[in-house]
């Protein structure tokens, strides 16, 4: 393990570590553009230069392996001057687009100019002009003038998505990033090039001109689009509700997790947050009688549900839990199910169109917590009915109360006629979820769930990795986290178990850790930002 010194600080690093990363480990940030730890070394921007003892000229630190006894200086006068020069070179042909460029506020030309440039500009000739505002694909917009030709996007398409759509054409200062004429950037991961572009050359079409980044708040969360559980940051616009067309969630950005998604996320997940601020969000409990939907209160709604559950025998009740629900939600639901002696319980609803899967991130299972549902045990009890059988029993009026959590049965692979007959046949249909859908439309009792970005919780991904998601927003309207609805229901049913008295998500998680073996010993603190694997 080579030991070296950076700006006087000693650090020991793994063999093969480059000097830029070694410096980072002791808190020395060396400015750079083209280097990215997830991509091959390019050495093109020349910004990451440092001085090294016994080396006559400054060298780029991204391509220099840390060696035993190396003495690195990142703040010599010569290095500082070199950085200033390199900043000037980068800005020679760069258009003064800041007022109209989405990257403003998170642009590495701006940031590094303020930190390392601050020279008087002297380029007074006509700048090189290139194509601007070119859509490359459904998600990515190119402004070739702004491009600093760091080649990160080209390397991403070659090395990560493996699709090779992007290239750098021509020579000299007429070099230009682009697609083969006539082609589009349509791979499943195209949005990642926007993240890695240090400047406003590649920007997000969905986010274009919506809200300035300095108005955004951020929360560490997860993508709920499939069983991978890519780590994300949820960026919300709360301070400028008149921007972003009033939508609270502005965008999702991947968050680095070496064990789950590295630096990346897929486009389906990245752009799949529209449901959170959609007008189909359920905002208040609703009771439907004689075909009329009447807004209700939580107290009334929970009392009504408690009464309905008490009214029927356990075998007359069917519960369709959801792998969209968090571990906490499922933990409380499991307790309820056991206390009520219910055995017609399931969480598996086959989708009408099965999802695709690839070697990178995307999983066929489009739910974030199937593994959690399995481990916590939301399946049929002894002699109990599975999902489909529940519906058939409901159609035959043997199951009288169907409690659907989060599923839109019209989108399932189950025959539409079966679903229709089941929902018609059941005396009481309860729907609990975030958005209105065909199933909620015929429910007698609708309970609005808070979206996962509106609460704390955890999901268990396909590999058994338990990860936290954190509150990014307040729940919309009267919506409540599922675990909160369910503890309230428990209390309405008169149950006095400790878990039904929980007031915070982490308390529920504590109960989960204490009662379900794979989660033993876990806590929110232990999970941190990267998560932990379940015990096998």
């Amino acid at each position, binding site marked *: 393990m080579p030991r070296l010194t950076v700006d006087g600080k000693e650090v020991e690093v793994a063999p093969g570590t480059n000097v830029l990363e070694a410096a980072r480990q002791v808190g020395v940030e060396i400015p750079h553009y083209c280097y990215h730890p997830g991509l091959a070394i390019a050495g093109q921007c020349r910004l990451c230069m440092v001085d090294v003892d016994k080396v006559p000229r400054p060298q780029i630190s991204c391509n220099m392996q840390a060696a035993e006894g190396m003495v690195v200086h990142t703040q010599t006068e010569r290095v500082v001057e070199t950085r200033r020069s390199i900043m000037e070179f980068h800005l020679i042909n760069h258009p003064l687009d800041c007022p109209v460029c989405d990257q403003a506020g998170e642009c590495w030309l701006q940031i590094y100019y303020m930190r390392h440039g601050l020279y008087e500009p002297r380029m007074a000739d006509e700048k090189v002009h290139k194509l601007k505002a070119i859509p490359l694909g459904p998600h990515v917009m190119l402004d070739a003038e702004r491009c600093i030709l760091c080649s990160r996007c080209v390397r991403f398409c070659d090395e990560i998505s493996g699709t*090779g759509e992007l290239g750098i054409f021509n020579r000299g200062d007429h070099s230009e990033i682009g*697609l*083969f004429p006539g082609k589009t950037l349509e791979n499943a991961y195209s949005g990642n090039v926007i993240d890695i572009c240090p400047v406003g050359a590649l920007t997000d079409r969905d986010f274009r001109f919506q809200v300035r980044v300095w108005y955004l708040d951020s929360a560490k969360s997860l993508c709920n689009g499939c069983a991978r559980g890519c780590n994300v940051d949820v960026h919300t616009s709360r301070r400028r509700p008149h921007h972003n067309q009033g939508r609270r969630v502005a965008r999702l950005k991947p968050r680095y997790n070496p064990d789950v998604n590295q630096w990346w996320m897929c486009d389906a997940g990245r752009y799949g947050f529209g449901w959170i601020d959609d007008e189909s969000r359920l905002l208040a409990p609703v009771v439907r009688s004689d075909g009329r939907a009447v807004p209700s209160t939580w107290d009334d709604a929970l009392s009504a549900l408690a009464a309905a559950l008490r009214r029927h025998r356990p075998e007359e009740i069917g519960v369709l839990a959801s792998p969209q629900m968090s571990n906490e939600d499922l933990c409380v639901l499991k307790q309820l199910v056991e206390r009520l002696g219910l055995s017609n319980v399931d969480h598996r609803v086959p989708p009408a169109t099965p999802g695709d899967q690839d070697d990178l991130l995307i999983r066929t299972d489009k739910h974030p917590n199937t593994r959690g549902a399995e481990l916590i045990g939301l399946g049929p009890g002894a002699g109990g009915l599975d999902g489909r059988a529940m519906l058939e029993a409901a159609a035959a009026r043997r199951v009288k109360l169907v409690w659907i959590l989060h599923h839109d049965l019209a989108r399932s692979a189950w025959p539409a006629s079966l679903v229709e007959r089941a929902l018609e046949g059941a005396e009481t249909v309860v729907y609990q979820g975030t958005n209105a859908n065909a199933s909620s439309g015929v429910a007698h009792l609708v309970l609005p769930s808070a979206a996962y970005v509106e609460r704390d919780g955890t999901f268990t991904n396909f590999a058994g990795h338990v990860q936290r998601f954190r509150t990014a927003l307040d729940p919309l309207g009267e919506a409540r986290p599922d675990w909160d609805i369910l503890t309230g229901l428990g209390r309405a049913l008169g149950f006095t178990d400790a878990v039904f008295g929980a007031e915070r998500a982490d308390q529920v998680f504590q109960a989960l850790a204490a009662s379900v073996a794979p989660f033993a010993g876990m806590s929110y603190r232990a999970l941190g930002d990267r998560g932990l694997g379940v015990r096998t």
Partner: protein
Amino acid sequence: MADAARPEFTAEQLAEVQRLQLLYPDKRGALLPVLHLAQDAFGYVSLEVEEYVAGLFDLSPAHVHEVATFYTMFFKAPVGRHVVSVCHNLTCHLMGAKTIVEHLQRRLGVDVGETTPDGRVTLLTVECLCACEVAPMMQVDDRYEGLLTPDKVDRILEGLR
């Protein structure tokens, strides 16, 4: 009839492509020779030619486009039956390249970069062809012509059909 819009190598040409690809440790090494072959066969390296050649190398078209746009000898648009490339680098400039270029522009009635309307000659200026001892000089198709004077240029042009 295969051309730059509908490129397709003959069986013979494909055999040559394969032969070239086997000469290199990685078949990609044959890309430049095959693009030369394609330009000779189809007249110029059109986008269709790039995509066709990309298929022969299992490369994305974008990467072939990178190569085609990087090198000056691959023409991206049709050229005349003859290409006249006048050097305008240092020694040729010292020895009167400007006069030769202006003379050619007048004689041919085109600007640098253009082709005569009858498709006979494309006029280009290029960087050092490394024949400075006979400056000012130009490349006419495959051959070098040096010690140019306006008269000599006229004689050379006469020989181009």
